């Protein structure tokens, strides 16, 4: 394995460069996936049948908390990658752990929100609007959940092996994934919640 020391560790081998490009293309596919979910949501957003409408169930407070948690986590993972470039293992691990805790917090609020909806009689089966809402939010939430597992696995490897071309590459790719989830959330916040509250 040839290591090119003029590049950051996550780009230092041929294999690593391929993986970063591959992951960007995967994110392209993810954009197509979420675009489809958004299209489905926009199509069905006003078709709530006998169920509640968006205005009746959305509440700003939990959503703002979720937004705050997730946006902050995107910032902290950026700091984590910066620490990795500087070779600061402890700082990197701390920032990654903060990121994951914030992610967990986001997930907790989202699950509480879902439970509230269901208690108000707004379930996935009630109307097409709610089916599409739960699917869009649920897909994003499932991505966050998977990210928590993945991030933990990477942290364990960094703890054991330190910064190697492999662990650096994995951490960097994970950060791309995490930022992407944040971008999707910004769209959800603006076009699902804010629009729904108007």
């Amino acid at each position, binding site marked *: *394995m040839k290591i090119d020391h003029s590049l950051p560790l996550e780009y230092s081998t041929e294999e690593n*460069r*391929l*993986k970063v*490009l*591959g992951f960007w*293309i*995967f994110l*392209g*596919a*993810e954009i*197509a*996936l979420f675009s*489809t*979910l958004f299209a*489905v949501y926009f*199509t*069905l957003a006003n*078709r*709530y*049948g*006998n*169920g509640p409408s968006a205005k009746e169930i959305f509440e700003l407070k939990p959503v703002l908390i979720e937004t705050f948690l997730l946006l902050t986590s995107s910032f902290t993972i950026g700091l984590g990658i910066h620490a990795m470039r500087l070779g600061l293992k402890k700082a990197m691990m701390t920032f990654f752990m903060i990121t994951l805790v914030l992610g967990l917090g986001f997930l907790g609020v989202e699950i509480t929100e879902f439970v509230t909806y269901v208690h108000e009689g707004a379930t*996935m*089966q*009630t*109307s*097409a*609007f*709610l*089916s*599409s809402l*739960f*699917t869009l939010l649920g897909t994003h939430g499932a991505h966050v959940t998977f990210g928590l*597992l*993945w991030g933990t*696995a*990477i942290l*364990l*490897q960094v703890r054991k092996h330190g910064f190697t071309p492999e662990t650096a590459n*994995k951490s960097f790719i994970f950060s791309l994934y995490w930022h992407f989830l944040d971008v999707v959330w910004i769209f959800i916040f603006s076009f699902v919640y804010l629009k729904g509250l108007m």
Partner: protein
Amino acid sequence: MKWDEFFVTGEPMIYASMVAIAVVSLAIPIGLTYFKKWGYLWNEWLTTVDHKRIGVMYILSALLMLFRGGVDALLMRAQTARPENGLLDAQHYNEIFTTHGVVMILFMAMPFVIGLMNVVIPLQIGARDVAFPRLNAISFWLFFAGAMLFNISFVIGGSPDAGWTAYFPLASPEFSPTVGNNYYSLALQISGIGTLMTGINFIVTILKMRAPGMKLMKMPMFTWSVLITNVIIVFAFPVLTVALALMMFDRQFGTQFFAMQNGGMDMLWANLFWIWGHPEVYIVILPAFGIYSEIISTFARKNLYGYKSMVISMVAISMLSFVVWAHHFYTMGHGVMVNSVFSITTMAIAVPTGVKIFNWLLTLRKGKIEFTTPMLYSLAFIPIFTIGGVTGVMLAMASADYQYHNTMFLVAHFHYVLIPGTVFAVIAGFYYWFPKVFGFRLNERLGKLSFWVIVVSFNVTFFPLFILGLNGMTRRMYTYSASTGFGPLNLISAIGAVGLAIGFIILVYNIYWSVRYSPRDTTGDPWNARTLEWSTHSPVPVYNFAKVPTVDSLDAFWFSKKNKTPLAEGAYEPIHMPSNSGMPFIMGIAFFFAGFFLVFSWWLPAIIAGLVILGTMAFRTFERDHGYHISVEEIERTEEALRGERK
């Protein structure tokens, strides 16, 4: 659930299939044990990450599925061969045309194309493997798991019966109460994930792993077509992923996406399906165009005419493919404006396609044409595909389409584009690249015989359907009365179908005959071809190229032969290779069972299978595997043996 609900009962043909499946599933392990081949199977095939072997497995599965889909086709043609025929009842006929469509498109055409990509692309760009060999194996096993899951549906639980398009509300639990459409959503989902991974893998491979000097505009045309195809895959397949997930939610969790009440919208399914479905058509046709470009240029002994316009046409087709989807349902209630827009975009596709047809014709002009079997298929493709294309433009005219929408005219049209387009191409590619993989050519006499039988029978089978469609016979009718007058033409079509079956049997016999008797090729370049894959030995050593070739022009191998300049210089260096892994295979099995349990809504076993899938992923992330190196001595030994200098 009782056993008679679990297994499909009451049909002698189904019982016969059950017996056949039981016999085969017993025969395989017994045979493997008797011939002591378990180790060989595991080490050389099930755990392989070698793109050539994965390609061979794709193609073998595709041939198997061609047989399955072909039997469906024969049953349909037999049922409609005469009026009021009682061979199949309506339900059984519905299931058969549904599985015929799904199997032929998703489990025959796609894997055949992807198999050829796997075999050829790394060789054609001078690479040692694809970018992510392990992911490639996962792609294959997910496709295979999906295909097997779909195929067991006809004995366990019942096949999907709402057409390969699975339109709602027909595919809803209300009108399609068996688990058939659960199989549809899950089997396609699993193999679709595999296809998406293939897409990513090949884009990175082609963008990043080309031989030094091979600029984008110096890539062989097949490589170009595959690059564009994979871009379409990456953007089209997520739409299918979503559509299938919503279908599963509607059918199994009671959501209201495509429901008839509570705000649901059945047309949403049709739109989502075709936003994926139309690009899908180009996913199977563009690589076919690439294959024809290679073959026509090789056997006309000329470089491809209009290289740049070929590339531009394909890019144009790939973009247009995403903006024509509504032409599949002009009659289903959108207004004049929408119909007009989609009419125009659809007809626009004829322009780049026409450019390509003329480029092939001009490549042939003044060429020293050699009529080999792959070339015969390519030459037959041009006129027959053009008939398919012209009838496509007829269908594209929205107002005229009201006359023949969903008639046999449409059926004839898409068979006229898909069979000469994709099926002839993959057969041609199969004949063309077969010696590269196995080291000997398929017999030309048998090849030409099966070609003529297939081409003639194809027209006998499908041309009558144009007339039947214009006479008003709708598709998917399981029977008709004698007074309609549809009988004679349907009978001719059925005779043609038998001819097609005979043609394919000759093809399979040809493989058997050639394995035993065909003379072995020692040159590595039996067709006197132009691209890099022919510059290495046949069969190809595991590392593909002992030295990485350097390229300075299109058709570099052709010029290196002509000018007698070597493609690669310097000494051998140790070659880094990925190690085999059983993980993709285990993942495939886990996906198969997860899918199977979900079909029957057995949640607990499904969750356990899902945890196994997560487990394989965790295993992968904690695994330390840096592959292995092939030493210089070993390369020298292999190369000498392949040159025949050492026994």
